[in-house]
């Protein structure tokens, strides 16, 4: 994304997302790095003493780790790229959906054009994400702009209240 596009279509602020996570009583972040969220979110989280970062080798580990934590009454989010989401679909299907567990996922949409909705992306790997989530009946929200972050806290609360998974799709690079 060039500087002109970035100025015209600003991404969500990492500080706002972190504040929303803390307000939602999230204590743990399980993550595989993703370039959409790297600078603005994952690096700040890694330096935040109020959040315990669990570095993963593979994304589906995080589905199970978040579930184990949920059984203990501890809140967590799983951060990954949409490729990791796709790679984890069986774990999400079984553990989050069929077992009805509050697995909350922050998913960077690598390659999504800043000026388009994910569903209108020219990238097949981006365009299919929302239809896949819809087919699995998984609640999802979009965090493209700074204002969108207001939906994150209620989405996490909804996941824990209903004991169901939720996905927040991050469609523009998170800014500090």
């Amino acid at each position, binding site marked *: 994304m060039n500087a002109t596009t970035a100025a015209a279509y600003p991404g969500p602020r990492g500080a706002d997302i972190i504040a929303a996570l803390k307000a939602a009583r999230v204590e*743990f972040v399980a993550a595989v790095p993703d370039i959409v969220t790297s600078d603005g979110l994952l690096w700040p989280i890694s330096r935040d003493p109020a959040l*315990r970062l*669990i*570095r*993963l*080798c*593979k994304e*589906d*580990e*995080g*589905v*199970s*780790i*978040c*579930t*184990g*934590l*949920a*059984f*203990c*009454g*501890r809140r*967590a989010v799983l951060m990954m790229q949409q490729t990791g989401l796709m790679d984890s679909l*069986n*774990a999400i*299907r*079984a*553990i989050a959906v*069929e*077992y*009805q567990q509050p697995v909350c996922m922050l998913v960077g949409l690598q390659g999504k054009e800043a000026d388009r909705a994910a569903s209108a992306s020219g990238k097949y790997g981006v365009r299919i994400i929302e239809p896949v989530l819809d087919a699995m009946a998984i609640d999802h929200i979009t965090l493209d702009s700074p204002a969108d972050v207001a939906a994150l806290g209620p989405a996490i609360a909804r996941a824990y209240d209903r004991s169901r998974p939720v996905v927040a799709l991050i469609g523009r690079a998170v800014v500090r």
Partner: protein
Amino acid sequence: MTMRRDDCIRALARHRGDAIVVATYQAAFDLMRIDPHPLNYLSVGAMGQASSHALGLALGRPDMRVVVLDGDGSLLMNLGSLVTIAGAAPGNLVHFVCENGCYEANGSHPLPGGDQVDFAGLARAAGIGDVSVFDALDAFEAALPGLLTRPGPVFATLKVVPGDPSPQEYEVIHGAETRRRFKEALRTAASR
């Protein structure tokens, strides 16, 4: 030498106390038959995920011991979890892999690599410092008190053969009632 898996589980039952035990596939079915403890965590959901569920439980309840009875085929499906566990370094996690060299729940086909895989070596190479191998029941039972109390993460390979058959009650391990009972047992454990 090898041990019967059901004998290993009987030994664990004698020493586990209030530990959470996460078990997968055949070990889960044996555990249900031999030691139907309320703190058994049986709902792993997807093959390979037992060690990751156990890591979440261990981080969420640092006041409790968490034991995972993994399978060798299952661990091969989530080998990276050894590295993740070593990195997170939960002091209360004990990871047993029941090595029988085959996919017992799926027709007993051999593992890729046959008997050449060294799970203890993989655990060491992943960064887990407390690693051992047991192929004799008396040695395993003698070591259990230490394995269950030393600072973790602890890893041990158990060289096993099946033992007596246990009913494959998939509807129980996947059932909502099993998860509800575990959650309630864990909540009660919190008030002790």
